[in-house]
């Protein structure tokens, strides 16, 4: 095996796969799965041997390649119509590769454009020219800056204060706000849907805590139509009732 390429130059598993297709001069619409899978796995072995940080995505694609390869080995079933012939097991992978390739090309052409601070330079305002904030000035701020500022505040706090206003409590109040927001739109929410929307175990816990907190505050009520029926959450008060 002669590998004259550096292995850490790939931007991800799709990039590595595209490289193999190009290197072997293969037709992207008709990828020989056995060959490509074998070479892909060889590259992974090399990367492991060199102790390169092998991101999980590389392994996921390896599993996908092996799966597609095995499906292609299966004999075509009797009586397959044309509709099923279209179901090439490689179709989704090819679509993904083409899409990625298109973006890779675009990234290269963007990189070739006349770029500020690389090819052209503008004047940097001398410090004394940067104006004070006029009172009625328009503001140019981004959300990212706002949250970064908040993160810095939180990071600077001592551990003791953190216990009081910690990230978990922040997540909890986020979840409470989300549920209230959803409730104002949907009138009622099913308990199981609320939990389904939480993808991590932590967020399931927050959802539960948020609902309990809202019930304790008498902001929402939970109803169940029969002992094993679905639980639904309703706002505790009618919106129109004032004071």
């Amino acid at each position, binding site marked *: 095996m002669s590998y004259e390429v550096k292995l850490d130059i790939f931007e991800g598993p799709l990039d590595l796969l595209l490289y193999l297709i190009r290197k072997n001069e293969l037709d992207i619409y008709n990828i020989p799965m056995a060959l490509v899978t074998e070479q892909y796995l060889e590259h992974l072995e090399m990367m492991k041997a060199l102790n390169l940080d092998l991101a999980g*995505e590389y392994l996921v694609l390896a599993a996908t390649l092996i799966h597609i390869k095995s499906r292609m080995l299966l004999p075509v079933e009797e009586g397959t119509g044309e509709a099923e012939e279209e179901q090439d097991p490689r179709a989704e992978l090819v679509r993904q590769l083409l899409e990625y390739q*298109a973006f890779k090309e675009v990234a290269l052409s*963007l990189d070739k454009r006349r770029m500020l601070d690389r090819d*052209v330079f*503008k004047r940097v305002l001398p410090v004394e020219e940067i104006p004070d904030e006029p009172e009625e000035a328009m503001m140019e701020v981004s959300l990212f800056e706002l949250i970064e500022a908040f993160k810095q505040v939180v990071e600077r706090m001592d551990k003791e204060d953190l216990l009081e206003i910690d990230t978990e409590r922040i997540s909890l109040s986020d979840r409470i706000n989300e549920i209230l927001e959803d409730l104002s739109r949907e009138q009622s929410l099913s308990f199981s849907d609320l939990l389904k929307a939480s993808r991590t175990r932590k967020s399931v816990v927050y959802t539960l805590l948020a609902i309990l907190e809202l019930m304790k505050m008498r902001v929402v009520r939970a109803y169940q139509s029969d002992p094993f029926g679905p639980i639904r959450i309703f706002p505790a008060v009618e919106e129109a009732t004032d004071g």
Partner: protein
Amino acid sequence: MDDMRSVVEALVFASDTPVSVDRLKDVLGEVDRKAILEILQDIELEYRQRRGGLCLMELAGGYQFMTKTEFSPWIRKLRGIRPVPLSPAAMETLSVVAYRQPVTRQEIEKIRGVDVSGSLKGLLEKKLVRIVGRKNVPGKPIMYGTTKRFLEVFDLKDLSELPTLREITEMEE
């Protein structure tokens, strides 16, 4: 009129971001947009013809004085900077954001096939990408889009100037 030309030149020079015709009109008052545009084009031509170190460029919805590209090695030497502002990974993430905006992190990761949180954060810090809202699907993921600075950095008048993305032909064809 000759004086107005000098005022426009001074105004464009004094700004560190591209100055739009509308903004110049706000400052200048009675002059109409067409006259301002003519002045800008006239200045652009003069700088192009005199073969100096500067040029007037139209980008990101406005006009700005810039150094000509051929002098970039000298300026990098003066400023002591290397010519690698963005990594290939950052460029790929930026491209997906540019063409698919508003787009969520998950959608970018599906296309690139890798975790993009690092490159996304770098792009937010460089103000090339911004948060534009949340997608109305479960989990309400944050959506991202490009900024005006993105146009400025890549010498684009607007997003329609982006190079066309190659059409993906279906496998069956």
